[in-house]
């Protein structure tokens, strides 16, 4: 049974990839992911704002209240070096690459083209096999047109492409008027893969204290539908590999993703909730299903139920929406 797949030219032993999450914070857990059978690991994200903020906070802590009062000219000893830049992250990639054989995909998170794209090169130099670029921008300015936001994103991809020659994936948001057009532009800008989709942490409201509160909810299989649809639509239409990264929890989810056209399916919530042993279980279940249905390799099924390859392409389009509503007559 051949579970292997390729992703941006890399050979993966199976299509199950650990997406960016706290599981990649330590070399030990990356090793455990490999032992558990994962095909590749996407590192947690290096955030441009976080690097800046940490630098500013450290400076604030070390200088606040200093040189004011004769008895206490400062409050902390000089500890020499501080890991406020990307060093810790890059070291982790280096160490991970020494310890494991599966591909390590760096992850970089930023808003716009700027000085921080140099971190892409640093990640490459640290030994990452590929880079996943997580570009997000939440427009709040009513004067800012969508075309500008799109262009900003394309520019970032171009800028990063110029910095690195390793494969480059772009994790995109689902909020574009024309996702296929955006996908095409990102591919033209240099992306080798698109990762569908970025999942935002949506804030909540505390009604008692009239405050906005951060609220992290892990995904579930229902969330697979959105990336599944767009993977199916994009498959074969844009010259990039596709990856699904939201709502992958079960072997069925993996199979659906592949059939829609994804080269890999990524999971994080499932592993955080139910542990790394789920990797082996899911792979066994995939294998068993494939045996039962007489598939010899996953390559066979990639894109098999994409929009391009289904009898009723409209099923992935607007008509599908109508159908869903019809199936719940009691609600109408």
């Amino acid at each position, binding site marked *: 049974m051949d579970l292997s797949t390729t992703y941006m030219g890399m050979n993966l032993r199976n299509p199950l990839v650990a997406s960016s999450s706290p599981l990649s914070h330590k070399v030990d857990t990356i090793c455990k992911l490999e032992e558990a059978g994962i095909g590749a690991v996407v590192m947690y994200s290096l955030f441009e704002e976080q690097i800046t903020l940490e630098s500013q906070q450290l400076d604030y802590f070390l200088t606040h209240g200093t040189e*004011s009062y004769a008895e206490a000219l400062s409050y902390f000893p000089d500890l020499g070096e501080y890991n406020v830049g990307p060093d810790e992250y890059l070291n982790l990639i280096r160490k991970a690459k020494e310890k494991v054989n599966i591909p390590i995909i760096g992850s970089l998170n930023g808003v716009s083209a700027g000085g921080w794209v140099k971190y892409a090169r640093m990640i490459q130099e640290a030994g990452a096999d590929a880079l996943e670029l997580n570009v997000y921008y939440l427009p709040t300015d009513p004067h800012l047109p969508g075309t500008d936001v799109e262009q900003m994103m394309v520019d970032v991809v171009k800028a990063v492409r110029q910095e690195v020659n390793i494969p480059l994936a772009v994790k995109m948001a689902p909020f574009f008027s024309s996702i296929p057009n955006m996908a095409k532009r990102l591919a033209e800008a240099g992306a080798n893969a698109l990762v569908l989709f970025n999942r935002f942490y949506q804030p909540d409201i505390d009604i008692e204290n009239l405050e906005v509160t951060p609220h992290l909810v892990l995904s579930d299989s229902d969330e697979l539908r959105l990336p599944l649809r767009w993977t199916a639509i994009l498959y074969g239409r844009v010259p990039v590999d596709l990856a699904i990264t939201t709502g992958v929890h079960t072997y069925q989810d993996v199979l659906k993703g592949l059939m829609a056209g994804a080269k890999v399916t990524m999971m994080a919530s499932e592993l955080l909730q139910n542990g790394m042993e789920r990797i082996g279980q899911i792979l066994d279940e995939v294998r068993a299903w494939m045996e039962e249905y007489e598939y010899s390799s996953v390559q066979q099924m990639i894109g098999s139920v994409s929009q391009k390859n289904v009898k009723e392409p409209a099923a992935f389009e607007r008509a599908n929406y109508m159908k869903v509503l019809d199936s719940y007559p009691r609600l109408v």
Partner: protein
Amino acid sequence: MARSYITCDGNEAAAYTAYRTNEVIAIYPITPSSPMGEFSDEWAAKGIPNIWGTVPQVVEMQSEGGAAGAVHGSLQAGALTTTFTSSQGLLLMIPNMFKIAGELTSTVFHIAARTVATHALSIFGDHSDVMACRSTGWAMLFSNDPQEVMDLALIAQAATLEARVPFLHVFDGFRTSHEIRKIEQLTEEDMRAMIDNELVRAHRERALNPDRPFIRGTAQNPDAFFQSRERINPFYLATPGIVEKAMNKFARIVGREYHLFDYVGAPDAEYVIVMMGSGCGTAEETVQALLEKGEKVGLVKVRLYRPFSREHLIKALPATVKAIAVLDRTKEPGALGEPLYEDVVTALGEAMMEGTLPFARVPRVIGGRYGLSSKEFTPAMVKAVYDELAKDKPKNHFTVGIIDDVTHTSLEVDPNFSTESPDVVRAVFWGLGADGTVGANKNSIKIIGEETPNWAQGYFVYDSKKSGAVTVSHLRFGHRPILGSYLIQRANFVACHQFHFLERYNVLEMAEEGATFLLNSPYGPEEVWHHLPRSVQQQIIDKRLRFYVINAYDVAKRVGLGVRINTIMQTCFFAISGVLPREEAVAKIKEAIRKTYGRRGEAVVQQNFAAVDAALDNLFEVKVPAQVTSTFDRPPVVPDHAPEFIKRVTAELMAGRGDLLPVSAFPVDGTYPSGTAAWEKRNIALEVPVWEPDICIQCGKCVYICPHSVIRAKVYDKSLLASAPATFKATPAKWRELSDKMYTIQVAVEDCTGCQLCVEVCPAKDKSDSSRKALNMHPQIPLREQERTNWEFFLSLPDVPKHDSLRFNNIKNVQLLRPLFEFSGACSGCGETPYVRLLTQLFGDRLYIANATGCSSIYGGNLPTTPYTTDSEGRGPAWSNSLFEDNAEFGLGMRLAINRQNAYARQLLQELRPLIADDELVDGLLNADQSDEAGIQAQRERVAKLKQKLTGGTEPKVRDLLAVADMLVRKSVWIVGGDGWAYDIDYGGLDHVIASGEDVNILILDTEVYSNTGGQASKATPMGAVARFAAGGKPTAKKDLGMMAMHYANVYVAQVAMGANELQTLKAFLEAEAYPGPSIIIAYSHCIAHGIDMSKGHIQQKLAVDTGYWPLYRYNPLLAAQGENPFQLDSSGPTIPLKEYTSKEGRYRILMQSNPEAAERLLQEAQESIQQRWRYYRMLAGKGSEGTT
């Protein structure tokens, strides 16, 4: 290896040598010597070795007494050992010093000499501490500037190993310990060449060793002791020669020459000053100037003060000397003269009596005192001494530098005499602590001192306030070494980094004619002139100053630096001072930025680079008009209606003119009036809270948390509003009991520090706009005048009487109690002061406070003002500070005194019953129930009645009863201090006091570090936190002091965190005070030393409780007496991981950033110990061992 030039201060210079030539270093923080220990701890944490290749072990002790004991033990066991200290710390070492010297043990203690506390504590420099050690038998070697400190530290180390006599290596606190100079750094080769390893081995040979055992430290009897003491004489006789030899060896190796007594001046001088310490540089500069005028003057710099070599002194004096003035930087009341004077007189007298005096005639010797507590010592004062010497009948036992109009000891000083050289850049910078001025200047000194051939000197004058602190930096740069160690009096560059200083201080007083004036101004070059006070305009015109402005705050804001204008102002200084070519200066500033900030991340570097570039684009020269145009000037410091003492003394101190106050202006015994902080309107907040009555729910949380008592609430009759100012705000009071009254929250905007805690804690939000609370921050300046009037009106409204029907057992009601602690100079957002304020609200009118030295004694009692004040009856806290190491005992003494006087009053009442002739009154006084405020008030009324009856009585017992009658009213004794005091230095005393069973209350303001001295670790410091002396993160857990106290069973113990549970804190205070025995409250006090956003201090307190790190509890022995469990847990245990709390504090984060593995391990251990402790506490509370989440 070639020596390099560095810029460093005296402390670093001493530590540099001491660290490399020792193996064990026992330390304890005390100003101004703490940095020596801090450097050593940091170097050891980084693994820097000494000259033998091993890393010295640095150990923090619980007190200087403990440090001296550890040093003694380490020396006895054969290690090269040292310590650093000052003042009271040195006094605590004296018992061990006698032993160490008596046992002829080689060691050097490095002393930043500081004033010993007498009528007052002073952190500043003089020789009173080292002079108190004269009888210990230690050699004393004095260094006069940072270069000498580095050099003589090594000479002392070399000499002690040979002489076997221990050495105090002394330099002046602050003036040398904190003065930055360019110096030549000794190399490790220099040190190895100076230190004879044979002598090191001999030191080890003399040490205790069970392989060749002996005993030392015996007890002796009259038959042996005396002779044994005399047995050491040869060692003392040999020591001067050994030091001289070491100095000569040093000169051969390094090139700098030192002698036991160094003479400078005319070879045929007639008038000679003999002195030691940092004043020598100033005296030498003056001698040089006077020599150029042909005057025959000279100076003897005493280096080896003990053992005192008569021969070497006499040899150093020129044969032509006619008169000698011996200057002592200390005072010994009642002595014939100060120590150095007496030594010189004795030396000359003995030589004269022996007929060996080599002078043409016996010189006259006079003695004088100067520079106590770092009082300025200037060339003009040196000149005054020479002038006095030349008189026929010079004044003996004179003082110089003050105006003594009481016993008329002072010399007259010509204020116009100056020796400042025109080829020296003399720059003075006025700044705020928060704006980074000092840091920038230290950077500039580094650039000029280390990157150019110029010589550099920097000295910094700090404020006694911790919030809104003013700093004045004095920088000299020149082509020749700088001699004088005194503040710049004639500056050719003056920078004022805060525009509002122009209305508070005479900023341009020291500007010389033609000087450059740089002003950080919100007004541009065209309009700034019209915003300057008249006197400033006049000075600019009269002195023909070149005047530049920059809007540094605007630039800083634009580049994202907030209020840090340091880099901007530094760039401007270089751009217009001409110290370096502009291009070169910019390049060097950027290099320095990379060096300073590089390790903090690229973002900060880039922001500062941007600041440099923007500064140059925004610096403008002002075309100075020929005429003064302003119609306003600096306002008076205090209003006219202030009390006479405030106007005459306090206001002068506030204005920075204290040096000009004569001796007669001061109280004879250090007694000062209460309530003086209210006169010091500092106006330091850029933004202040503004109250919205329509949103306010009148909960009182803002009043409760305010660290500076600037936000107050009152409930009053509506009729009183008739005379209210137009903008005075009021709303109906939301109290059932006070439904017909009005309520106001008023902010003292001129006293507010702008910490925002009140706004953060305010729970009331506008229902239609959640960004608007009942308190919101607004710019202070537009509100100042209006709110000043409102505040005055607010003060005129009556306070709710304590004995009113309201019960002050909830936060809402407590807000109405008048604080008798207001407007302290504590850090903005301080976590300690809300507890102190609460204490005064609840018990202030009958409160004794014994205050341990530390933050609370500084914001409580540092001149010019005190925040402790009085109520409308004139009652208020009686406050005193004794020492750091005795505060528990000091407070116990107060309790005992009250008890005795109370007992005597009761006895007299019985005895005078017939005379008083009012049994009801007497019985009432004797049997009063004073368990609540109403009972206390009734007793006060009885005492008043008694006094009325007795007034005019002449019988001794009647007069005695009048003297002690106040003691019939219940008094509340509170022993207040920080964790350094309670957990460490006075733990023994605290333990003894709680064991006494006496009715004292102990309030521990637990900041978990020695906050006042810069955040050194104490036994209260939590595991994993970085602190000074715990650079690698504290490896051990915090001491559970509360649990230890509980084991006495009869001690009331509470652990509180006001920010987490206001009511539990209030209950603890009330219960502790009510408990008729010893009580302890351990109060979580967030602190600037935690590395937090101080406006979120209460949130950190809550996190500390919710993580289970800081469980809240009360242990009340009275409950046990009622058959209940005395231990009550008031918090719900660990509900969130410790990380949620630690990740928001710099003290933990910097370890995560510098040593993540260690941080993770320590935090893991800390998390486990929290769970364990919680299980234990639950069991104690009778709730079983489960319950952690």
